[in-house]
């Protein structure tokens, strides 16, 4: 799963913006400086309707993702909720 994210994240790097790195589920991911959670989710191409995100061990409610600005070395846990059973 993460291998897919990393491949996708590398292609969407924007030239000319300052970069920083955050930790997503244990892997380093490069994002634009001051990226929000929402931007990161877009970069990783995740389905934002079925997602739970922790930043530095604090769950961030879905309605804060658009405004929550990430910092260098933030540790994120991102989980896509699954529907089978």
């Amino acid at each position, binding site marked *: 799963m993460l291998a897919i994210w990393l491949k996708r994240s590398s292609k969407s790097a924007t030239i000319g913006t300052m970069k920083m790195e955050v930790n997503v589920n244990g892997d380093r991911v490069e994002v634009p400086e001051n990226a929000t959670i929402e931007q990161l989710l877009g970069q990783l191409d995740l*389905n*934002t*309707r*079925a997602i*739970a995100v*922790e930043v530095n*061990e604090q*769950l961030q*409610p*879905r*309605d*804060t993702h658009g405004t929550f600005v990430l910092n260098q070395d933030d540790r994120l*846990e991102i*989980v896509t*909720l*699954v*529907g*089978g*059973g």
Partner: protein
Amino acid sequence: MNNDRYSRQVRYPAIGDAGQEALGQSTALIVGCGALGSVIANTLARAGVGTLRIVDRDFLETSNLQRQMLYDEADVESNLPKAIVAAEKLRRINSSIVVEPHVVDVDAANIEALSKGVDVILDATDNFEIRFLINDVAVKHSIPWIYGGCLGADGQTMTILPNTSACLRCLMLEGPPLPGTMPTCDSAGILASIINVIGSIQANEAMKILSGNKQSISKSLTIVELWQNQFRQMDVSKLRDQVDCPTCKGRQFDWLDGRQGSHSAVLCGRNAVQLSPPERQPLDLEKLASSLESVGQVTRNRFLMKLAVDDFELTLFPDGRAIINGTEDVAVARKLYAQYVGN
């Protein structure tokens, strides 16, 4: 109560005699009796939960046997609905409990009746649309419920104590993922092992609720990835206070009130579509069987009728519902239904 039967469970301090007695007087609603439902129903029946109300809309197929632990090959050949087969098996496992099977598609029209008088609702469904309906009814009537979902080797579960802890909408404020945007058991596959893990956690959470141990309920979203052996917990204890949830704070029940929801569904891992026409008429299966005998191969029992035609198999239920095998295209399924059953 047969004392020996539950002796090892009663010896567990948190259960004890009082907990066992409470379990015996409890009613659990299990929505879905496929993979998760098999594990949950099996565990709760053996634990001595007094009444199990099990609801399932489907019948058995060979591809179910890999992970749906209550069933065997003879059950597939019987062509009986899952709820009926499950009830028979559960009664053999524990004849001292009451098992109520319901062969219906749970929807906004019947979920309040199905959940009447239950002490807990266990989610053993295969899609988010119905989970939001369960969430609505649970929050509206303050019934604890336990979400469980699995895909591939991944699974998650969360226990919801309505009006106390975060509900499903608190977590997924925008509602279920849009149709076709999520991987399914068909595309991603599913392992039996993750089902057993998640179903067991769900059953155990239900036992805490039913045995008078609500203080021990998990306050986290539990996430398990079995292939990489990752076990994670996300603390959701503050979530309800953090969000302005339309369901549990606004008391707006969009799925229960029918403002949201659909009448067809692609069935997880089945290469099949269920059609549940909103204004469906009851079907006279006997009459239909005789008129369709010239069209294809027809088989019938008390609970359903099957028509095999070309590469498709149509299974019709007396309530007007149909499951069309051989396609995942809702439009194709609707066309076949219109062609052989009528509109």
